[in-house]
């Protein structure tokens, strides 16, 4: 971004120098404040914030879609949505929540915190990082554009062929879906390459792999999963778009195609994907639980290896989504057993978290509440998952609300709760202000109650035989007595309102905190890991001097030491630890420079996609934008040379980043 020069003369002020001269095809952007500083930034922290803000926006979109679904289903023969709109609604609800909320939110946290947690000043490829963000954002907007251009995709989030083919889904909705996901896929892939390289290569001295914070570890596993899973759905999406846009017949049964091809490709991606969604949250709570238990994570190596094991075994279970598809008994039996195997490493995590609590000194901040909530709610969802893995019984439950209950417990009770835990935990780090704890408590309880009210009854509904994806349900099959559809559907719908109010409180909390929140102390939680060893919010260059790591939970060990009786006592305050770093500050730090090219290049992708749907010349224009972007990108040095700064950085001992 700039060259950060330590003020030699006096106190605290660091001066920032920005590059000035013309480089590459365009003059470099230089703004350090205002909207331009965001648009062209390559700073991982700014990008992290933008990722999260965009994801939050999509969460509200996906949530409103969910609320519409619930309103429609509250009573029999709902009239709020017609069949067509309803089908679009649940397809886009799931797509938005999975691809545009949880994934980018996790990417936002990864972006912001991985470099801080491993003691780096930025990611390995800052410009690619910016490109990832913009590609995700443009892809997400492109997907939602379909609402205004003749209707959104309506084939369900796994978009089974041949229903997703041009004959059965003639509107453009699915075209937008396919191409939009293709764009966000590119973003994920680029992000994965970037973050893996960052974690492996940019660690501070002494930060061995087995000293890395668990959040970083889980993100590393996630990025590997993305790296290998995204290309699989890329293939599937290509085949589908060639069928829809260029007349190929990959899923056209009359030409001899086998519709199960799509199912396999989708779920080979799709199952690793669900671990992509959950592992970041596992990472978050593995940070939060120890901090508020005042105790290290129980069995750190087990948590690390079980995470890796989940990631690995997750590749061998995809066909459990296809138990009713007619695979044949051998495949069904094999996938059934392999799916059960995954419960073992996941169980390890549950055990470790519980044992972390055990014997601790628990402080129930909002972050901690969400973390503990996750343990219980995820377990419920995981156990229903195990009941699905029993293939014969799954043939009764698949495609009913029992499955809907399962995945909302793991996704909402698991992934979303983890993210909320992270919001409360890291908010002071990012914005320097503490979220209101009282509102947080309300937020938490309304969410727990609302979520159980919404998704709990779905177990009943599903076991009573209510299939999913029905725009209306009928009294005729509702049954009576305690377990009738009528009561529990209404109950779930009311629950979703409670849940919405809970989430609304979070949004209100953000506003209140921004207006007049409490300014956060340097180390508000008495935290343990490296990201807290810098100011709130962190400086542009993260650390004044890169710390040398000698422990897991480095920050904690700098603050605490065992006294003679073996009791941990605080020997240093966070301020003192910080001061040590400041005293050794690098004089001149050369940060990666902002660039026009990431956003420019990313903007070409939706143009191409738009052209593929409507007219090839537009696609060619998009192609030219991309080509020009690549050209500009490759001739612009990723980091402006030292002599290009104003004032030029003259000193020899400049520390370079990126």
């Amino acid at each position, binding site marked *: 971004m700039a060259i950060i020069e330590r003020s030699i003369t006096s106190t605290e002020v660091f001066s920032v120098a920005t590059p000035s001269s013309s480089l590459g095809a365009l003059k470099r952007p230089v703004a350090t404040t205002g909207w331009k500083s965001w648009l062209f930034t390559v700073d991982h922290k700014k990008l992290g914030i933008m990722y999260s803000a965009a994801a939050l926006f999509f969460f509200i979109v996906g949530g409103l879609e969910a609320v519409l679904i619930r309103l429609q289903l509250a009573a029999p023969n709902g009239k709020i949505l017609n*069949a067509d709109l309803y*089908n679009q609604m649940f397809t886009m609800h799931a797509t938005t929540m999975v691809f545009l909320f949880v994934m980018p939110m996790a990417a936002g946290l990864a972006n912001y915190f991985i470099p801080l947690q491993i003691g780096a000043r930025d990611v390995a490829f800052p410009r690619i990082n910016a490109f990832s963000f913009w590609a995700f954002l443009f892809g997400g907007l492109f997907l939602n554009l379909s609402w205004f251009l003749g209707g959104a995709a*309506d084939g369900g989030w796994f978009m089974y062929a*041949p*229903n997703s083919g*041009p*004959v*059965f889904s*003639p*509107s453009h909705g699915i075209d937008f879906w396919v191409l939009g996901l293709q764009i966000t896929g590119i973003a994920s892939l680029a992000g994965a390459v970037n973050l893996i390289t960052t974690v492996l290569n940019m660690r501070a001295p002494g930060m061995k792999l087995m000293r890395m914070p668990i959040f970083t570890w889980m993100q590393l596993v996630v990025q590997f999963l993305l790296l290998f899973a995204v290309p699989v759905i890329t293939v599937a999406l290509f085949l589908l778009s060639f069928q829809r846009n260029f007349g190929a017949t990959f899923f056209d049964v009359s030409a*001899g195609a086998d*519709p*199960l091809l799509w199912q396999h490709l989708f779920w080979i991606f799709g199952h690793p994907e669900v671990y992509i969604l959950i592992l970041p949250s596992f990472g978050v709570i593995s940070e939060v639980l120890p901090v508020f238990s005042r*105790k290290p*994570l*129980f*069995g750190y190596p087990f948590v690390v290896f079980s995470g890796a094991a989940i990631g690995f075994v997750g590749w061998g279970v995809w066909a459990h989504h296809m138990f009713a598809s007619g695979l044949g008994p051998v495949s069904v*039996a094999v996938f*059934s*057993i392999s799916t*059960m195997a995954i419960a*073992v490493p996941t*169980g390890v995590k549950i055990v470790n978290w519980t*044992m972390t*609590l055990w*014997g601790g*000194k*628990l402080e*129930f901040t909002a972050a901690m509440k969400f973390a*503990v909530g996750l343990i*219980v709610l995820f377990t*419920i969802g995981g156990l*229903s998952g195990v*009941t699905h893995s*029993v293939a014969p*019984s799954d*043939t*009764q*439950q*698949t495609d009913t609300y029992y499955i809907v209950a399962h995945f909302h417990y793991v996704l909402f009770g698991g992934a979303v709760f983890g993210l909320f835990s992270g919001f409360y935990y890291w908010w002071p780090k990012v914005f320097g202000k503490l979220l209101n704890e009282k509102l947080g408590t309300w937020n938490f309880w309304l969410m727990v109650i609302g979520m159980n009210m919404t998704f*709990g*009854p779905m*177990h009943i509904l599903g*076991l*009573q*035989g209510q*299939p999913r994806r029905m*725009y*209306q349900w009928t*009294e*005729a*099959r509702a*049954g009576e007595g*305690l*377990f*009738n*559809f009528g009561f529990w559907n209404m109950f779930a719908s009311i629950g979703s309102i409670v849940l919405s109010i809970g989430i609304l409180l979070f949004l209100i909390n953000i506003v209140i905190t921004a207006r007049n929140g409490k300014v956060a102390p340097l180390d508000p939680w008495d935290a343990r890991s490296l990201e807290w060893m810098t100011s709130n919010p962190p400086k542009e260059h993260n650390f004044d001097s890169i710390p040398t790591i000698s422990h897991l939970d480095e920050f904690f060990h700098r603050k*605490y030491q065992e006294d003679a009786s073996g*009791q*941990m006592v605080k020997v240093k305050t966070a301020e003192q630890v910080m001061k040590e770093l400041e005293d050794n500050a690098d004089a001149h730090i050369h940060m990666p420079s902002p660039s026009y090219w990431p956003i420019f290049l990313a903007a070409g992708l939706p143009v191409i996609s738009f052209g593929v749907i409507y007219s090839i010349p537009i696609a060619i224009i998009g192609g030219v934008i991309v080509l020009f972007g690549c050209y500009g990108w490759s001739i612009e040095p990723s980091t402006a040379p030292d002599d290009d700064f104003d004032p030029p950085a003259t000193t020899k001992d400049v520390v370079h980043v990126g």
Partner: protein
Amino acid sequence: MRHQNTTDHGTTAVNRLAGMRRRVVGSIAGLAGTMFLAGCATNAPQDTFQPKGPNAKIIDDLQKPVFAVAGIIGVFVTVVVIIAVFKFRDKGQPIPHQSHGNPALEITLTIIPALILTVVGVFTFRTVFDLAKTSDTEMIINVTGQQWWWEYDYPVQNEYGITQPIITSGQLVIPAGTKVLLRQTSRDVIHSYWIPALNGKRDAVPGRVHLNRIEADKPGIYAGQCTEFCGLSHANMRMEAVALSKADFAKWVANQLKPYASPAENTLAKEGETVFMNQCIRCHQVNGMKRADGTPVIAAPDENMVSGAAPNLSHLMSRNTFAGATFDLLNKSCREDVWGAESESFGAKYLGGVSEDCLNQTDLRGWLRNAPAMKPMYANPALLTSSGGKYRGMPNLGLTESDIEKLVAYLLTLK
């Protein structure tokens, strides 16, 4: 949508509401408990814990213990977490010892779940292969899904009196106590066949034939629902399996094979036949129907429908429901009479079919007036051109009221 289920609590086998035991399950806490209860005491027609035939029973025997185990583990974890939360909350105790774990404990707590799952796995394995068994099949029916109804095609099986193929839709009629093999496929997109009381789901995939074995212990009507998302009217794609005693089944077969009888001249029904020949015969086959010149009338649904088929109406009035079992053909009181019948008299009542007095005039007329208004058929009619102008589902034919009058009279003759 109509009530398809009576509300009186009789004690017949047909009435699924009747005589249901409500098993009480002990040791239930929180949600795991609710989940449990749902499986054990109930009265919804598609309940997955009320097997009414051997296949569903095999599944049920496996899933009950699995749900129990899952429930117990769930309760256990929840309780431990709650204890920890209360026991170790910050009461000013000193900072705990910074212990990093206990490998022995870890390994034990890894092995226990692994053992539990091994046991579950063994039983799962066996059950999968038990269910896959088809060698002792006694009867075969071809089942074809399409947007948004099911077609049943009984191949010639002389031992059941099926001397000619029978084609019907909506209600699958089977002899009770007989091992029936469904050979499933689809004409357009993927559907899934599911009668929870008889067996789990099996997808009907175009281009593939999937086997699905069912058997009903007793005569009765068993409700089901298409459970693979198949487009606009997926929610309105239902089905029912009707099990008849073997004797009644033979009667049913005989009726299906009854030759076509054209209505008497100068009746309303006869005029209806003419309208039918003009309008409906494009898609709907009525076996044995002949033109005035004696040439047989053959429907050409493949020229009009994306899926290439429309229900065969030869014996429409022998069924109780229509349009993918979404609407009743019987009016309310007649319906309750059939559906609530005693086990012994059920067969006779079902075989009585739909008489003029019993016909659900409102829905049938509504259907003929404007079918897509009752059951969504295609998202956007303007887009039909992209399927070569072929229909998906039954279109609005713009019939006049007098045409409808005649058609209804005619359809009533199709017993």
